[in-house]
């Protein structure tokens, strides 16, 4: 589907809060009505939401587009209540209006010929992959998810994810559900099984996990992409506050890309993932 040229790539729009639901410990699914965002959005992109009624909070907050529903013109974001912004967001009521800037950033792209898509998600890093799997539901290739969290009360929407993928491998740090340990151990075992399939890795989550996926990708000579998170003041390339270090910069004076504009999706081999 090519984007509708009548819809601007990025715009600001007031969205009505359609629902807010607790889907795991300290984790909420916020659904907003914004047909123009839904129409323009592609998997991997994000929105920057204004946090309501709090003068002290200045910036918008960036969220991966987690799910879209074309029929109702709504989209959802998944967030953890961790700081001032998400606490304020958690206080929104049905019917409230939030200003949304988006869709922002680039998108996931899966190379032609891929016949096994491997998604590696840690914690809330699962967020962008629901939209991706929705969008790629008809694609015939295998979709394998490795999803790790600290403990089982932090898994989000397992039933929904299992419907959208070929297999779902769960890990928890404390062993309360799935395998005890990290997604990396589980992923490594999978990669050790020889396969004729063209595998492609997609990953999002904590920095330490992203680094480990990057290393595994190199070890098994797999290509892939990583979706990064970063503090952002604007989300569209103006503040230049979200640099991501490039492994092989095109020019010495351009050692950084911007997470908001050049990303958030980067090739797994393209960027330096710092601790």
């Amino acid at each position, binding site marked *: 589907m090519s984007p509708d040229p009548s819809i*601007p*790539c*990025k*715009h*600001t729009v007031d969205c009505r809060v359609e629902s807010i639901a607790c889907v795991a410990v300290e984790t909420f699914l916020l659904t907003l009505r914004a047909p123009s965002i839904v129409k323009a959005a592609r998997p991997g992109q994000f929105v920057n939401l*204004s946090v309501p009624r709090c*003068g*002290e*909070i*200045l*910036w*918008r907050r960036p969220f991966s587009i987690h799910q879209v529903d074309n029929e109702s013109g709504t989209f959802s974001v998944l967030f953890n209540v961790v700081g001032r912004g998400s606490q304020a967001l958690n206080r929104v009521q049905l019917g409230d209006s939030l200003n949304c*800037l988006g869709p922002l950033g680039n998108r996931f792209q899966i190379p032609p010929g891929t016949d096994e898509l491997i998604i590696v998600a840690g914690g809330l890093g699962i967020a962008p992959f629901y939209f991706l799997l929705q969008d790629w539901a008809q694609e015939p290739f295998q979709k394998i998810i490795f999803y790790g969290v600290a403990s089982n009360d932090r898994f989000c929407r397992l039933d929904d994810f299992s419907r959208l993928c070929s297999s779902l491998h769960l890990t928890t740090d404390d062993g309360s559900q799935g395998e005890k340990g990290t997604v990396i151990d589980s992923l490594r075992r999978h990669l050790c099984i020889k396969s004729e399939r063209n595998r492609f890795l997609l990953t999002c989550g904590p920095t330490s996990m992203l680094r480990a996926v990057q290393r595994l990708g190199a070890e098994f000579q797999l290509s892939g992409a990583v979706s990064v998170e*970063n*503090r*952002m*003041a*604007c989300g*569209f*390339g*103006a*503040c*230049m*506050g*979200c*640099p*991501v*270090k490039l492994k092989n910069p095109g*020019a*010495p*004076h*351009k*050692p*950084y890309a911007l997470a908001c*504009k050049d990303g958030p999706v980067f090739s797994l081999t393209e960027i330096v993932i*710092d601790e």
Partner: protein
Amino acid sequence: MNEIAIRIGSVEFANPIMVASGTFGYAEEFDGLVDFREIGAVVTKTVTLEPRPGNAPPRIYETAAGMLNSIGLPNVGVKDFIDQKMPFLRTLQSRIVVNVAGVTAKDYVAVVACLDSVPGIDAFELNYSCPNVKQGGMSFSSNAQIAEAVTASVRKETKKPLIAKLTPNVTSISDIGRAVEQGGADALSAINTLVGMAVDVRTRKPRLSTITGGLSGPAIKPIALAKVYELCKSVSIPVVAIGGIMNLHDALEFFMVGAIAVQVGTANFMNPGCAAEITRDLRCYCQQQDLNLSDLIGSLEVDG
């Protein structure tokens, strides 16, 4: 018709609402997000003679009603600015003010010399005040003699209006203001960011890679108002106010203390349409009150 146009040097600006350097990229980033026709002037991201990579991350941190930044003036350099950034800027109906910085006085002169004959540039803003660049920068704005000398050297390169952007991180901003006026500046803009800092208590590390950075946003507005008020009383050239302006009310405060124009900065990040909204609101306000902008400028009433 209530008049809101202003003049700096030989150039007329259709309205007094500008966007501040470093908060509006090279304007192209805002395409589709703002009505450029309502912006009196776009002040570009700083341009230097050679390209600059900018500072290492983390570069920004949100604070109470404000933000810290240490971006470090990343830019494509004057040559690529002309080739890659000017074509879009030239299509805008806003006035284009190019913000210029250098490590040495010669750099400022060289950049302005390169740009002076480039079509579409209406004025220059001399960035004497970036707190996040290790060499130079600050010394131009914290030493009155140097600031005057640099301004005078640049003055020889161009007939276009020169706006000198000043730092608040000095003992007496009016000393510097008077010096650059002497050096031939057509206007002053103030204030740039205040040096600030934040610490991550968990890791005991500073929140910015450069340890300190520049504080901007509504948190600095009262300081900006006091500095602009002081400058307006000290110099006879116009003062363009910068510092935490989020809406018409904020802009009116600056006009009342004597500013001829304002620059919207940090607000552009959260509300990319902010400057255009303020222009529309100002027009409405002047109409409702049946005032010209000139009736507002310096209209502060001080008892006694």
